[in-house]
């Protein structure tokens, strides 16, 4: 069975390395991934990021081709549906343009200034993931593009994706909300609750501690103004099942809008604009209904609200 030959220092080396590993894990848990650990992580990612970007440049066409081949049977059907949606969207766009023109007219009439949405947005490509068991996303934008640790990330439709966990000069790592150990403060109707990831499930657990009324399947869950990690009003998902309060606590599940595994493009929000504003923030990020399509050289836009 096992090789019984004497292995010299193999066993002591194994034990020493496992002890070092356990110490590192304990240190990382105790320091909550900050301090020295964060510095070493950033340093390593800075060294690896250029190689990942170069490899991504080469492998992206390959992955696109494989994706296309695997979806070839659905493409015709999808095209027909998309043509129909495009026609509807064009009609809706004309209606919105008409409303915008009227709004501009009234703003001029009453000498109002648009408050606008002054959250900066950085569009980034997802260039990779660490491995099959790590849900984090690696993107091709970093501090040189204005990204900071803790900034919220949404997809091209404006749905919540996750938080920037670490950032180097040219890349960043995002932890999706579905894999984050920290709860996200959300609002359903007018009730504020916490959203947590669950093990062995794509659904998230919703807890409302001072619940007054039931929640119904299909109700929208958006980020709350009390959230310290997202601006208010970012869509997160839909209630998956009806639930009523028991005494004053309500527990339900939420199906997130975004599946991080399928993301190829994300938008990092420069939020909060300054650390003090987080306390009084009431900015609502409008949900976007268009899909951004960019090539390898992704763009950085600021304050257009989309």
């Amino acid at each position, binding site marked *: 069975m096992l090789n019984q030959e004497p292995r010299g220092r*193999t066993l002591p080396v194994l034990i020493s390395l496992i002890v070092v590993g356990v110490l590192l894990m304990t240190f990382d*848990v105790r320091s909550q991934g900050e301090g020295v650990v964060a510095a070493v992580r950033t340093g390593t990612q800075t060294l690896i990021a250029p190689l990942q970007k170069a490899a991504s440049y080469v492998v992206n066409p390959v992955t696109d081709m494989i994706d296309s081949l695997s979806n070839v049977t659905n493409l015709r059907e999808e095209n027909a549906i998309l043509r129909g949606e495009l026609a509807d969207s064009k009609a809706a766009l004309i209606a919105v343009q008409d409303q915008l023109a009227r709004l501009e007219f009234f703003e001029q009439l009453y000498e109002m200034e648009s408050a606008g949405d002054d959250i900066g947005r950085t569009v980034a490509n997802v260039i990779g993931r660490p491995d099959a068991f790590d849900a984090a996303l690696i993107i091709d934008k970093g501090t040189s593009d204005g990204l900071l640790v803790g900034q919220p990330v949404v997809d091209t439709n404006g749905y919540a994706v996750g938080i920037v966990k670490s950032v180097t000069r040219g890349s960043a790592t995002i932890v999706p909300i579905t894999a984050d150990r920290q709860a996200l403060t959300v609002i359903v109707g007018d009730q504020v609750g916490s959203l947590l990831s669950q093990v062995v499930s794509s659904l998230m657990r919703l807890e409302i501690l001072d619940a007054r009324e039931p929640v119904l399947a299909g109700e929208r869950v958006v980020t709350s103004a009390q959230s310290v990690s997202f601006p208010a009003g970012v869509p997160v998902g839909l209630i998956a099942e009806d639930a009523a309060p028991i005494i004053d606590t309500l527990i339900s599940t939420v199906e997130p809008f975004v599946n991080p595994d399928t993301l190829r493009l994300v938008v990092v929000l420069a939020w909060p604009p300054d650390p003090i504003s987080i306390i009084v923030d009431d900015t609502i990020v409008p949900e976007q209904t268009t899909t951004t399509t960019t090539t390898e050289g992704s763009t950085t836009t600021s304050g257009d609200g989309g």
Partner: protein
Amino acid sequence: MRIPKSLAIATMLLLAVVIQTTLFGQLRVVAPDLVMLVVILFALTRTRAEIVLVTAFGAGLLVDLIGSSLLGLRAIVFTAVAYAALRTKERAGIGRFTTAIWVGALTLLGVILLVLVGTLFGQSSLLGPDVGTRLLVVPIANLILAAVFAPVVVRVIDGDATALRFT
């Protein structure tokens, strides 16, 4: 010209990390653990056992540093898998099929250890919605890759064109 062993090992590991995080990071359906595969295959080379263990630890640490999970988690797992590989490697050299099965079994051990140790240290994100599928897909993908690439990896590291030549 013979490539220095340390350079060959470092290059191979770096290549595995980059391909793992880019190509296989985007193709979620095909999900081998390339770094674990390379670590297991190191055990088949004529590299000293202690160096194989230290290399496995370093490779795991590198993957930990690139990702978002606990620092040291993969370092421990890869070291344990490398030790198991060193202790059983005589069983692997019989043929291409046996080597592939051996790699698949060690990868299965590795991913189970990863989930268990990670869960003990509060890494619940390792238990994602399709953890069961991944526990099977990763070893199978590594098994297939090992059947194809095991001899090449061993020959490059040992600098011996006759190494792991199955009859």
